[in-house]
């Protein structure tokens, strides 16, 4: 019995790192700000809320926000920002410079700041 318990414990320990919530390892530590026009509105679906914006140089950014419920809590709903409006997002862009993906902690629309990850830079 002891042998079995050890075996099972060893097996579970080997899977331990997988239990930590995933970080933002693929994104830069420094803050970037991108201003652009919304091309795909806010979606409160999936593991994280998302939207797409096009910057002044014509590049389309995949914007990832907090999990849906938390994003909604911060005041960002699916109906808040119409397609075509200008927003400024504040967060951590992908480490790969040709990947226009940014995980945002704050978002400014219509002169109002939405803090989608309160307490986070």
């Amino acid at each position, binding site marked *: 019995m002891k*042998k*079995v318990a050890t*075996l*099972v414990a060893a*097996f579970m320990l080997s*899977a331990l790192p*997988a239990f930590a919530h*995933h970080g933002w*390892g*693929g994104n830069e530590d420094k803050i970037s700000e991108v201003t652009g026009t919304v091309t795909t509105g806010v*979606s*409160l*679906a*999936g*593991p994280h*809320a*998302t939207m797409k914006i096009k910057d002044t140089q014509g590049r389309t950014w995949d914007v990832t926000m907090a*999990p*849906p*419920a938390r*994003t*909604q809590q911060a005041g960002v709903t699916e109906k808040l920002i119409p397609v075509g409006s200008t927003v400024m997002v504040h967060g951590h862009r992908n480490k790969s410079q040709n990947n226009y993906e940014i995980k945002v902690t704050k978002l400014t629309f219509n002169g109002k700041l939405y803090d989608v990850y309160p307490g986070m830079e």
Partner: protein
Amino acid sequence: MRTLLLWIEATSLGHLMRESGPWTYAIVNLTHVLGASALFGSVLVLDLRLLGVWSRRVRIADLATVITPVAIAGFLVAMTTGAALLATKATAYVDNPFLLIKFPAIAIGAINAGVLNLTRARREARVRALTTRERRQLAVFGGVSLTAWATAITCGRMIGYW
């Protein structure tokens, strides 16, 4: 691959997942984890037995009687909720290597279980003591099963880290 993912995303399941409130994904995700844990937890016990643990005290046939329905139920729950999770934003996973390892691992696990149930040794285990050769054969099935499901779970958990 991209075409397939686009199609999955466009299904009514995908629409349902995206249009039914901010907690939908989280709840379906939770159900997926419960299904996968029922599957893995039950299969782990049977696989250890096939590998020879508790061989003097528990009969394979008795263990399989209780484990098979739990494992099948867990598999079905995990499979349906997994399809729903994928359909939410399928195209977001287009370059995800973990997804590409996960699905073949699931296929190997499921086929292995199916073939195991067709083997002579598995049937004979109900009525008589197995020969060394038969026990070894079943141990191989146990090892393959454990490896396949552990790989599937590991890759599933890692998808979000990519």
